[in-house]
C-alpha cells in the first residue's frame, strides 16, 4: 500500500457530496476526500490547489457540466481518474462520451457497495501506474527557462487572459511548457504570491470595479471568468469580506 489517495467530489447537490463524504469509510480504504466543488467552474479553479488523484463528477451540473469538465481536465491531468456519476435519464448522454478517458460510469443513486468496488479498481490502477497529480510533466524538462523575466510573461499572460473561465495553473503551465508544480513554485518565488490567489485577485479586482458600476452579479461573474455565480459569490465574499449585493449597495451608496 502506498500513500493515501486524494478524492475530489464535484456535484451541484450538496447533500450528494455530503453523503459521499459521510457514507463511505474513507480511512478504511486509505483514501481521503480532500475537496468538493459545486460546479465544473469551481472545480477548474480549485483543482490545482486540491491536487486530487480521483474525481467523482456528476454529469448534470449548471455552468459547466461533467462532460465539459472532463474534456478540459483530460488534457491537463492525464493521470487523473475520473468517475462519472449520472442519473438514468442522462446515462445515454454520458455513454456518448465514451471517447473520453473516463475511468468508470456510475449510476445514481450511488450504492456504497458499488462505489467501494470501483474505488478498489481505481486504487489498483493508481498503485500500478504510480501516477500522481501534476506529475505529468518532467520537472527537469521545464527548469531551463529560468529566465528572471519569465514570470513577468506569465503575469502578463494572466492579466490578458483571466476572463477565460477555463484558465488555471495547469493550463498556463502547459501553455508555457512548465510543469504545474514548477510554475507554482517559481511564481510564488518571484511574485511572492500564490498563482491561484493571484488569478483570483485579478478577477476580484475586476469584479469590484464592475460591482462599483452596479453591474448585476451574474453578469459580473461571467465577465471576470467565473461564470458560476454561486462560486463567484463565495469567492467574492471571501475576497472582500462582503457579499456582492452588500458590496454593490455600499459602493453605490458611497458615490451618492
Amino acid at each position: 500500500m502506498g500513500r493515501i489517495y486524494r478524492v475530489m467530489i464535484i456535484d451541484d447537490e450538496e447533500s450528494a457530496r455530503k453523503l459521499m463524504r459521510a457514507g463511505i469509510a474513507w480511512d478504511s480504504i486509505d483514501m481521503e476526500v480532500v475537496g468538493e466543488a459545486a460546479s465544473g467552474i469551481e472545480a477548474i479553479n480549485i483543482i490545482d490547489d486540491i491536487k486530487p488523484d480521483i474525481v467523482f463528477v456528476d454529469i448534470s451540473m449548471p455552468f459547466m457540466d461533467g462532460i465539459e469538465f472532463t474534456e478540459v481536465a483530460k488534457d491537463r491531468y492525464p493521470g487523473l481518474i475520473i468517475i462519472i456519476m449520472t442519473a438514468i435519464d442522462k446515462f445515454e448522454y454520458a455513454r456518448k462520451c465514451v471517447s473520453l478517458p473516463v475511468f468508470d460510469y456510475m449510476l445514481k443513486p450511488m450504492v456504497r457497495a458499488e462505489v467501494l468496488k470501483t474505488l478498489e479498481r481505481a486504487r489498483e490502477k493508481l498503485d500500478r501506474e504510480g501516477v500522481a497529480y501534476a506529475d505529468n510533466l518532467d520537472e527537469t524538462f521545464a527548469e531551463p527557462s529560468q529566465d528572471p523575466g519569465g514570470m513577468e510573461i506569465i503575469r502578463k499572460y494572466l492579466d490578458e487572459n483571466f476572463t477565460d473561465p477555463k484558465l488555471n495553473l495547469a493550463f498556463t503551465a502547459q501553455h508555457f511548457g512548465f510543469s504545474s508544480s514548477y510554475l507554482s513554485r517559481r511564481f510564488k518565488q518571484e511574485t511572492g504570491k500564490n498563482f491561484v490567489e493571484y488569478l483570483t485577485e485579478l478577477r476580484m479586482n475586476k469584479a469590484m470595479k464592475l460591482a462599483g458600476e452596479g453591474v448585476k452579479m451574474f453578469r459580473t461573474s461571467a465577465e471576470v471568468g467565473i461564470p458560476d455565480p454561486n462560486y463567484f459569490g463565495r469567492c467574492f465574499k471571501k475576497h472582500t469580506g462582503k457579499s456582492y449585493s452588500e458590496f454593490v449597495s455600499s459602493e453605490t451608496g458611497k458615490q451618492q
Partner: protein
Amino acid sequence: MGAKNKKSLSGTLNRSIITLIILVLAAFTCSIFLIIAKERREYEISNSERVLRTLSDSITASIVNYSQVSRLIITDDRLVTFLRADADNVDMGMINDARYGVLDILYVTEGADCVIVVRDDMIMMATDRISYTYDHDIMNSDTWRKEILDSRGRAVIMFNGNGACVRNDGKPVITITREINDVLTQKRTGIMLMNISSEVFSLMLNTPDYDNICIMGFDGTFIAGNRDVGKSYSYNVSDGEIRHNTIEDENGKWLVSACRAGDLPIAILRKAPYGTAGMPYGVVQVLLFLMLFLLAAVLFFAGLLTRKLTRPVNSFSKLMDKNRQSGELTLIETDPPYRELNMLKDGYNNLVLHVKDLIAALMDNEKNLREAEMRVLNEQIKPHFLYNSLETIGFLALDAGADDVHDALETLGSFYRDFLSKGSSEIPLEREVHIVKDYLSLLKLRYGDIIEDVYDIPADTCNYTVPKLILQPLVENSVYHGIRQKGEKGIIKISSFVSEGKLHIKVMDTGVGMSEDKIKELTRVRTGDDADGSDKSFGLWDTISRIRNYCGTDDVVNIKSEIGEYTEVELIISGSARR
C-alpha cells in the same frame, strides 16, 4: 370474395376470340364447299354442253347426209320406173329392178339399213325383205300417212317407221320418210322410208369419254349408248335448250344433262358424276390462304389484345397485391399504355397517398399522445427529484446516526434506479437478481420476518441475458398470493441453471400454493382479445407473455404447485446469449 365468381377479362377475351375463330373457320369452310360444289357443277355443265353440242352436230350432220341420200334414191331411174308404172304392169322384175337401183346407191352409203318404197296403191318395194316385219295396215292408215304427206316432200324422222317397219332382231332404226312426187307431173307417186341403223350412232359414241351418253327418240325409243342413262330420261328438250339436273343415288351425285339433236326428234342425255376433275384448286388455294391469313390475324389480334390490355391490368393488380402483402403503402410506379388504366393507377395512388396521410396523421396523434403521457409520467415520477431527495434524507439519517434508515434509503434508491431505467430491454441475470434482492429487502422492512429469501445463482448463469423485470413480478406474486396468504413465515428461493443451452430460472415459495385452474389460466396462450388487463395476475401473465415473445416460443413456463405447500414457477429462456 365475389371476384372468384366473376369472369376474368382475359377469359372473356379468349372466349370471344375462340368464337371469332370458329366463325371464321365455319364461314370459310362453308364458302369453300359452296364454291367447290358450284365450280364442279359448272365444270360438268360446260363439259356436258360441249359433248352434247358436238354430238348434236354430228347427229344432225349424219341425218342431213342420209336425208340427201334419200333424195338421191328417189331420182333413181329404176325406182322412178317402178313408181310410174301402172299397178297392173308392176311385176317382180320391175320391183327387183327398183331394188337394185336403190341398192346401188346404198352400197356406197354406210349405215343405211334398208329402204322401203310404198306406192300409193300399197305396192311395196323393200331392199331387205328378211330382217324386217312390215305392217301394211299402219302404212295404209291415214294418221301415219298424214304426218308424212303434211310435210310435202321434206324428210320426216321416225323411229322404226312408227311401227310400220320393225327389225326382227329388235334393233332400233331411225326412219327417214318422205313423200315421193313425180318429177314431171309433180304428183305424188309414193312414200319412201329409209331406215338408218342405230349402229351409226353407236359408232359416234364409240369413245371412252362417251360411255355415259344415251341417244333416244322423243318417244322414248332407245337408239344408242348407255341404256342406264336413258332410264333417267324425263326431259322435254323439244325447244332445243340444254337442260341440267342434279340427281343423287347410292353412287353419289350426278349431273344429268339433256339436249335435242338439232331439230330432230332425238334427245341426247349425258349423266356425269361430280368428279374431282372440276375441283377449283386455284380458288380453294386462295381461300385457304386467306383463311390462314385471317386466322393468323385473329390470333395476332388476340395476342395483342391480351398483351395490351390484360397484361397491364395483371401487372397492375400484381403491384397492388404486392403492396397489400408487404403492408407497405408504396405508390405504384408503372406506365400503363392506356388512359383508362392510367386513371385507375392515379386513382389507386391517390388513395394510397390519402391513406398514408391518414396513417401519418394517426401516428402523429398517437405519438403526441404517447409523448404527452410519458411527459406526465416523468413529471409524476421525476427520478431526479426522487434520487436527490433520497440522498438528502439519506445524509440526514446518516448525520443523525440512523444508519439503518440510510441503508433502507440506499436500497430504495438502488431498486428504483434499476426499476425505472430506460436503457436496454435485456439485462444480465445477475442484475435481474439484484433488483429482486433490493425489492425483497424493502419488503422485509415492511413485513419483517415473514419472508426469508434464498438465492442459488451459479456463477455460470450470472451473465445470461434475460428480458428486464421478469423476476420481480414472479416474486411479487409469491409474496402477495403465496406467503402473505398463508400467515406464517415463508421461504422464497430463486435458483437458476443451464440445461441444453437454455437458461432455467425457478422461483419457489412455500406459500398457499396455486390451484390447477389458476395454473392453467396463467399458462394458457391467450389471444389479444381476452388480455384485457383486468385480471388480478396481469403482471404475472404479462411477464409470461413477454418471455414468450422474447424466446419466440410458447413453451417458456412451467408451474408446479401443491395446495398449502408450495408453488414453483420455472421460466425457460432460450435464445439468451451469454455475454
